[in-house]
């Protein structure tokens, strides 16, 4: 892995992000200068949960030389907005009981929680587990401790007083990746930074002139559904 200079997330945002945020969310009042990211007031997550989400996203997709960090890319905003979409309310899922929570894992998600409930319960349980073992909430832990805690959740090696840690982690990681790579329409992938990092041309969706040029690198940057280019 390449060694890269470590940016402080807040410093980076001060330098790089405010203009983009202001453009994307006109009229949304600025938050406290201390609470990242500024200028977006979550509608679903409360202040404590919002701190958790931002801290977790910052570890799952950190700021580094490869590409934009998840926070800077608007991933927390994406997740907050998704929670107010039908998806967050579980509208896409069959939610009738009984719930066989001990069913074989290959039979898929069997909890009674909607994504909204999973986040609320998962964050509270994760914070309380961190307080119990480290005397601080997840967001207030050093990066290394945060990463160890996330890895333990991923492995199911930490027992939460709520949903299974691996299930909550899986939900979080899925939504984080979605927010990083979905069209900017949904609040994440700001400036199409996720797409630029990997070289996905977004909604261009026309390669008529490239069908006969196999093996050549496609040269154009992405466009988004609303017509932004990069």
């Amino acid at each position: 892995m390449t060694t890269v200079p470590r940016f402080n997330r807040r410093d980076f945002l001060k330098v790089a992000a405010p203009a983009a945020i202001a453009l994307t969310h006109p009229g949304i009042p600025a938050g406290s200068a201390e609470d990242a990211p500024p200028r977006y007031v979550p509608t679903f997550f409360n202040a404590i949960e919002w701190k958790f989400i931002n801290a977790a996203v910052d570890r799952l997709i950190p700021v580094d030389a490869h590409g934009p960090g998840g926070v800077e890319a608007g991933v927390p905003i994406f997740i907050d907005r998704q929670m107010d979409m039908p998806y967050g309310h579980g509208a896409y899922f069959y939610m009738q009981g009984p719930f066989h929570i001990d069913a074989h894992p290959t039979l898929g998600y069997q909890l009674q929680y909607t994504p909204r409930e999973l986040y609320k319960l998962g964050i509270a349980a994760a914070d309380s587990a961190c307080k119990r073992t480290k005397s601080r909430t997840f967001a207030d832990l050093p990066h290394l401790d945060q990463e160890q805690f996330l890895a333990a959740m991923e492995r199911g090696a930490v027992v939460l007083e709520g949903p299974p840690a691996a299930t909550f982690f899986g939900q979080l990681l899925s939504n984080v990746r979605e927010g990083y790579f979905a069209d900017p329409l949904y609040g994440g992938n700001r400036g199409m930074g996720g797409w630029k990092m990997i070289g996905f041309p977004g909604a261009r969706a026309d390669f008529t002139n490239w069908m006969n040029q196999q093996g050549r690198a496609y040269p154009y940057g992405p466009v988004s559904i609303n017509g932004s280019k990069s």
Partner: protein
Amino acid sequence: MPTRKKPVDAVIIGFGWTGAILAKTLTDAGLSVVALERGPARDTAPDFEYPRIIDELKHGIRGELWQPLAKETVTVRHAPNEVASPYRQYGSFVLGNGVGGAGVHWNGQLWRASPEELRIRSHIEQRYGKKFIPDDMTIQDYPVTFEELEPHFDHFEKVCGVAGTAGNLRGTIRPGGNPFEGARSSDFPQSPLPAVYSAQLFAKAASDFGYKPFPVPAANSTTAYTNPYGVRMGPCNMCGFCERFGCFLYSKAAPQTTILPILVNRPNLEVRSNSYVTRILLDKTGKRATGVLYVDQDGREVEQPAELVVLSAFQLHNVRLLLLSGVGKPYDPVTGKGVVGKNYAYQMVGATTAFFSQDVEINPFIAAGAAGMTVIDEFNADHFDHSAHGFIGGSMIYAGGTGGRPIAQMLIPPDAPRWGSGWKEAVKKHYRHSASFVTQGSVMSYRDRYLDLDPTYKDSHGLPLLRMTFDWHSNEFKMNAYSIARLEEIVKTMKAERFVNEMFRPGTPYDTRIYQSTHTTGGAIIGSNPSNSVINRYSQSWDVSNLFIYGASAFPQNIGYNPTGLLAGLAYFSAAKLRESYLKSPGRLVDA
């Protein structure tokens, strides 16, 4: 009491591919037809318009075009003695919804069956002996031959404007095509698009082994094309958004781009969307359908009387509606008696993913669901001698992805970090320089793999969900391992930095969480007599002679190919018989 509608000549349940095919046939014949579709009305414009359709989150992940599982899903268990759990979130397969059905968001890989697969039991017994077929394997012959279906395969390919290269034209093997295919009466209606880069690499490597790579038959139009019904299609631009999306270019064959345009103004056809059929109504004898009961878009219960009932919903829904309606005897896995729900099967898919160096530009986003792909058929069906291998069936092996959607189609090595800087490094490094090569394999049918009604879970109308009892058998693990071994030999020569096999360890349970294939089959199978099947060779119910059932529910076992070509061939074969015989003199078309 339900509202009773004016009787019609025919009612169609489910308005996807086979519903559209039958709607054309029946309205051509002058019948008054009502088509009931559970989902919304949909058309290219405005539903699939650029750029809104190019939205991976909305369509590729959340599945806005799919059946909402909140209202109805299936339950799944691995064995008959287990309690089934609901398929609560999409994973293993995706179900169509709305006008066009899964024909809207399919890839367009349009295959015929191999001739020997239509008489599989006889063929295997003849070539390898009776003992080669395990006792619990319940495979059976189709009561119709490749030669009988051929004109109908041919017609449907022209309807869809399929692009391909003929491998067997009237018995002459031709270079560049599939040498294993059954004889075709005419060439494909359109020429294939060039292979994408990963497919070219594969074709070269496979050729070096002496295999015969050829373009995947693609229902992705490659030119400005007019089909036999006078419907025009546009050329595909390889946008990379077939699978899970509607086509904004009128290129991908779908009912909307091939058949529905000539039906919309027919006075004898009425399409009622958001109409959820809950029951096929039978008369007192139970031998004759009198119409259907459905819940309309305002939640009212409606009775639609009809002389002829066409059941053309998705495979799983066909089986469920038969069970809910009491048509035919439900299958009992203990006695092996009964037929409705019998022989559920699936597909077993494997892959070898190659991670190339940074100078190999795969451009995974330049793609189509079928166009630009290359395939070999040496290890599919019974195209090779199985005697030393101890399994039945096989896989087609293809190259060229269906797209480079970054949320769902990201390829990174399994040992790469799943998050953090290591993950970023991996996705950045591999996204444009990796390719998956896929084995899509058949699954045979077995005595203990079947569909019935769940005793516990209900849909939003309070009706029992369908229950799927399914897991892999050793035959399929052997098939998968053999297919992957052949694929790996090819990929090894491609000079990738590394490659990784995705295959099934024997004993791995069926995993509903991971997308594998929407090619679910069986449960209302076709056969030679009422004790081994639900429908006869003309897709007519053995029990209720004015009920015809279409779709992959007819397959007695699965094949390695995609199912649409075969199920459409069966539908057109049936439609011809309806036109020529049944509509003039309704009654049982095959003596039991």
